[in-house]
């Protein structure tokens, strides 16, 4: 792939060409955490426009083994999800969360900001001691502020890491609960007639 964004840093005799897109590529590649456009732009300085370069770079990686994902102004390289079956033998997938933890996470995702008592009311059971701790450890959930109610309980919200983990562009990517609850939940979709 040829260098597109060439910028001359010095106006000296020899053309000191710096490929600004290569810088963005290297920055993102080296980092396991998403980088914000601001961080990237700060590193680039006057060499180029971060957002333009990011879009160009994302296009370069379409159809390859890794792809450039940008969500809410934060960018990261991730392996293409369709390759997962071919990677997992070497990369050892992470353990899945328990049903209780996944449900708690879902409630926080949908009802945020939400208090512990509200989560318990929806699930009909007390949250076991470790569940919220576990979710905080994953980096997907964080306490944020207090509800202006008796006892001023802490409320819980999801993090940008939650979006990254579940490959969501934003919280609005979550399907509406009414859709999930909707037609025929208790009547599983008819089996395709054999």
């Amino acid at each position, binding site marked *: 792939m040829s260098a597109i964004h060439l910028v001359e840093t010095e106006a000296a005799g020899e053309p000191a060409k710096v490929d600004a897109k290569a810088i963005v590529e290297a*920055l993102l*590649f*080296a*980092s*396991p955490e998403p980088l914000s456009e601001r961080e990237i732009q700060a590193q680039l300085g006057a060499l180029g426009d971060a957002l333009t370069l990011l879009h160009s770079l994302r296009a370069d990686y379409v159809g390859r083994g890794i792809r450039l994902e940008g969500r809410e102004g934060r960018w*990261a*390289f*991730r*392996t*293409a*999800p369709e390759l*997962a079956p071919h*990677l*997992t033998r070497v*990369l050892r*997938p*992470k353990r*899945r969360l328990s*049903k*209780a933890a*996944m*449900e708690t*996470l*879902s*409630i926080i*995702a*949908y009802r945020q900001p939400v208090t512990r008592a509200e989560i318990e009311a*929806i*699930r*009909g*059971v007390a949250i076991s001691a470790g569940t919220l701790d576990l979710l905080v450890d994953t980096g997907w959930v964080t306490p944020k502020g207090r509800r202006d109610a008796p006892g001023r309980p802490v409320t819980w919200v999801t993090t940008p890491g939650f979006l*990254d*983990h*579940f*490959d*969501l562009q934003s919280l609005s990517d*979550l*399907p509406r*609960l*009414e859709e*999930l*609850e909707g037609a025929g*939940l*208790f*009547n*599983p979709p008819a089996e395709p007639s054999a």
Partner: protein
Amino acid sequence: MVALGQSEAAKSDVSAFVVALDEFEGPLDLLLELARAQKLDLKKISLVALADQYLDYLKAARAKQLEIAAEYLVMAAWLAYLKSQLLLPRDANADPDAATMAEALAARLRALEAIRHAALWLEERAALGTARFARGAEEPLPKETVPVFVAELGALLRAYGVTAKRQEVARIRLPRHRFMTVDVALARLSQLLTGSDWRELRSFLPPELASAVERRAAVATSLVASLELARSGEIELLQQQAFGPILVRRRP
């Protein structure tokens, strides 16, 4: 879910359920599983039928002498009450809230069911670490530290003040005295000593001498001056006893 809705029999015969209370996270979960097993539409759910199933289930559990947590029994009592209220003729003294309460329970079951589906939906996302992977080895980028120095004017002035103070301490200051020189004493004695009467040498000292050191120095210089004048024959000196007053007069 385990042991529920598996067989055709389970659809119609609650007692055919394998009692597995541990599988459920509380009464709400059990109710939802019962509804699911019966493939009930929660929008048109018959709370009466669901209550019957719940109570039958607990009965079966009790028959098997399983320990039943209090929360299940509370729900059982509540459902039994709700059922009785719902079954009473409309015009009787039925609890007017029974229908509302039944609807509230159905709504809770629907909400929990929706969250269940949301959790499943999330799990099927291409999650990081299961279907998508991040950079495996972080490559630490080089870092350059360029300190930015800060200082306040006050601190600078204080530093100078402290330095200046230290310098002041280091300088040795001798007290400045105004000692009478021999020349001054000579002039003074020659001028003031007029008559030929004996007068005490001390009386010729200048009166403004403040400190003892200056006074003693004046005594010494005056004595030297008087000796000098006596040697040149201008005056006479007399001391009648050791450490006695020194008397002086112009030579007659």
